[in-house]
C-alpha cells in the first residue's frame, strides 16, 4: 500500500483532477502513508513572504524601531518561515528517501523511515497552509457559548443541558477556566433540562477553537420519558461569541454613547427603599440601535448581573459586526459562503448507533460517550477546522492565481 500511494503521489503533481483522486487515496488508506502536496501557488506565496521577512529582518538588525503593526507582521512571518524551513527540510529528507527506495538492500529500512517522515511532512504542510491564511479577527479571544433548545419539547431542553455539560467537561479536560453566567432550568419538567444557558470560557483563543461549534446540533435517541421506546429527533442551537473586554486596552472594546443603551433593573412595585427588602436582582439591557436584548438574573447581586449582561451584550455586538463585515467582504469578492460558516444543522448525535456525525466535513466519530465527556470533541473540531482550512486555502489559491 505504501508504495502504491507513494508512486501515485509522485505522479500527481499539481493536476487538479489528480489531486482529487490522490485525496481519495489519502482518505481511503490512512493519512500516514502518502504525502499531501502543497499547491504551487501557496509555495510561491510563501517564497514571497520569505523575501518580505528578510527585508524586515534586515531593518530590525539595522536598528529600525518597529511600530505595533510591523512588529505583529514580523512575529507572524517568522512563525510562517520557521514552519516553512521545517517543511523544506522534511521535504528534502523525503525526496532522498524516495530515491533510496530503488535500492533493494535498503528498502525495508527506508520504508520504516518513511513511516516517520510522511506524517511529519503532512503535519507541516497543513500547519503551513493554516498559517498562510489571515487570522480570524477574534482568533485570540476568550469566548461565550449560548445554548438554546430548538424543536423537540422537553427532550430538547434535556439535550441542551447535555450539551452544556459537554462544553463544561471539555473545559475541565483542557484545564480552561469557565463560568456559567446564566442558566435557567425548565420549570415544567421537574428540574430536568434547561431553557437557556450561557457559558463564559476565559481561555484566550478558545473562541478560535469553539467557533466551529456554532449551529444547530441534532439528537436522535429514545428520551427517558418515552414509554414506547420510540426514537425522537430534537435539536439545540449553539451560538459562539467572542468575549470582548470592557477595558480600553482591548481595541475591540467599544464605548457606548449616551442613550444607546436602556438598562432596566428589577424593582419592587410601590414605595421601594426601606419599605421592601426584595431579593429581585434581574437586569435587562437593550441596545437600542440593534434591538439586541440581554436578560441576566442568576446572581443575587444586581451589580454583577449588570456586568454579566454587559459582557454578553459586547460579545453579541462584536459578533454581529463581524458577520456584517464578512457579508460585505463576501459580496465585494463575490465569494461563496464557506460550508463551515453556515449555521444550519451542523451535527447529529445518534445515541442508538453510538455515533456523532458532523455534516460539514462528513466525519463520524463512533464514541459518543467520549465526546460528551469532553475528551473526544477535539477529534471532531480538528476535522471541521481542516475542512475550513482547505476551503480557505483554495480561496487563497484562486485569489493568487487571479491576480
Amino acid at each position: 500500500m505504501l508504495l502504491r500511494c507513494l508512486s501515485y503521489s509522485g505522479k500527481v503533481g499539481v493536476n487538479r483532477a489528480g489531486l482529487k483522486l490522490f485525496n481519495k487515496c489519502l482518505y481511503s488508506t490512512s493519512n500516514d502513508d502518502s504525502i499531501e502536496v502543497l499547491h504551487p501557488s501557496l509555495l510561491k506565496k510563501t517564497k514571497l513572504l520569505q523575501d518580505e521577512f528578510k527585508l524586515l529582518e534586515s531593518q530590525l538588525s539595522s536598528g529600525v524601531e518597529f511600530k505595533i503593526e510591523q512588529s505583529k507582521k514580523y512575529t507572524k512571518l517568522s512563525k510562517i518561515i520557521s514552519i516553512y524551513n521545517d517543511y523544506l527540510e522534511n521535504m528534502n529528507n523525503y525526496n532522498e528517501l524516495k530515491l533510496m527506495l530503488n535500492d533493494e538492500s535498503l528498502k525495508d529500512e527506508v520504508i520504516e523511515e518513511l513511516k516517520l517522515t510522511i506524517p511529519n511532512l503532512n503535519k507541516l504542510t497543513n500547519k503551513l497552509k493554516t498559517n498562510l491564511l489571515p487570522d480570524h479577527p477574534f482568533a485570540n479571544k476568550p469566548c461565550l457559548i449560548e445554548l438554546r433548545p430548538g424543536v423537540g419539547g422537553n427532550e430538547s431542553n434535556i439535550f441542551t443541558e447535555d450539551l452544556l455539560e459537554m462544553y463544561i467537561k471539555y473545559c475541565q479536560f483542557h484545564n480552561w477556566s469557565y463560568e456559567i453566567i446564566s442558566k435557567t432550568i425548565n420549570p415544567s419538567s421537574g428540574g430536568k433540562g434547561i431553557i437557556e444557558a450561557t457559558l463564559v470560557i476565559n481561555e484566550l483563543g478558545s473562541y478560535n477553537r469553539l467557533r466551529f461549534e456554532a449551529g444547530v446540533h441534532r439528537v436522535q435517541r429514545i428520551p427517558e420519558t418515552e414509554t414506547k421506546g420510540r426514537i425522537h429527533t430534537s435539536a439545540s442551537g449553539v451560538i459562539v461569541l467572542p468575549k470582548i473586554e470592557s477595558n480600553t486596552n482591548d481595541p475591540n472594546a467599544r464605548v457606548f454613547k449616551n442613550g444607546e443603551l436602556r438598562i432596566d433593573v428589577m424593582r419592587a412595585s410601590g414605595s421601594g427603599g426601606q419599605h421592601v427588602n426584595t431579593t429581585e436582582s434581574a437586569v435587562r439591557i437593550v441596545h437600542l440601535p440593534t434591538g439586541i436584548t440581554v436578560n441576566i438574573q442568576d446572581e443575587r447581586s444586581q451589580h454583577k448581573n449588570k456586568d454579566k449582561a454587559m459582557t454578553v451584550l459586547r460579545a453579541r455586538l462584536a459578533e454581529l459586526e463581524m458577520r456584517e463585515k464578512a457579508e460585505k467582504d463576501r459580496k465585494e469578492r463575490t465569494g461563496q459562503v464557506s460550508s463551515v460558516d453556515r449555521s444550519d444543522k451542523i451535527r447529529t448525535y445518534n445515541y442508538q448507533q453510538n455515533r456523532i456525525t458532523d455534516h460539514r466535513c462528513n466525519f463520524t466519530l463512533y464514541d459518543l460517550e467520549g465526546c460528551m465527556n469532553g475528551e473526544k470533541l477535539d477529534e471532531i473540531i480538528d476535522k471541521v477546522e481542516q475542512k475550513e482550512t482547505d476551503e480557505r486555502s483554495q480561496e487563497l489559491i484562486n485569489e493568487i492565481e487571479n491576480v
Partner: protein
Amino acid sequence: MKLPSTLTPKNLLSILTKSLPEEQAAQELRWIQQELPSSSWLEAVIQRSNYKPLQYILGTQPFGNLELNCKEGVLIPRNDTEEWCIELQTVLKETKLTGLPNKLNVLDYCTGTGCIALSLAENQLADIVNSVTAVDYNPLAITLSQENLIKHRALVSSDVNFVLGDLLKRYIPPMKYDIDLLVSNPPYIPKQHLNIDGGVEQSVLQYEPQDALLGDLEFYDALADMAVKLKANAFVFELGYLKQAFEVKEKLNYYTGVGNTWQCGIRYDSGGGIRNVVGWRHKDLRTLGKMCHEMI
C-alpha cells in the same frame, strides 16, 4: 405546617411557592442550595416561607463590590441604596478637587451594616476619599459594620472608623479631619405608613428592626443641623418622601442663617420613587448635581 416526607428539590420548591411567586421561589431556592449546606435547606425554606428575609437566612447581601454580612436587628442594605451608592462612586471618580485642599473626609450617620460607609471607602475612590467615619446608635450595628470592614479589608483603602452615637442627640464623633461629605440613610417611614397599607412588606414588618425604619422629619432636621455645624461641603441623604427633602432644604436655610449658599436637588431611583436629597455648597462638589433629576 405539614412537612413533606422526603426532601426533594420539588418539595422544597413547593414550600417556598406557598409564600413567593413561582419564579422568585425557584431563584431563591437555587441561592439557598448554592450557599447553605444541604442539612440547612429544609429549615431555610421553612423560614423563608414564613417571610424571614433571605438576607438573614443566608447571612449576606451583595452591595456593589461588597458582600455584606447581615444579622437580625440591623437593617438589610437595599438595592435602592446600592444603586445611589454606585452612582455616587461614579460621580466622585469624575470629581476633581481644585479648591478643596485635601481629599474628602466622609461622615455617615445611621450606618447599619456599614454599606454606604464601606462603599465610599473602596479602593476605587482612593484618589478622592481620605477617611470615612460612620455612626450608629445601635451597638449591634457597630459590631456588624466592624465585622464587614474586616471582611472587606482588601477592598477598602480609606481610613474607616465606626463609632457608637445618636444622630438625634446631635452626637459628633471624634474626627481627625474636618468633614466634607455627609451621607445618611436614616429611618424614614412615618408611623402612619409603617404597615402593609403604607407599602411596607410583610417580611420587613415582621423581621427587620423597627427603629431602623420608623422616622420622619426629625432625622432630616438633625442631618441639616449637623451639615451646618460640621461645615460640610456636600451631602447625600436617602429618603422616602418629598416633604423630607424640603425639610432638609428649609432647615439648612434656618441653621445657616445669612449667607446660605447651599444648592439642593432631588434624585429618583430607577423604580421612579423619590430616593435622595443631594446638596453642595463648594464648587468642587458641583459634580453631585449629576445625580439630581431636579433642583429644589
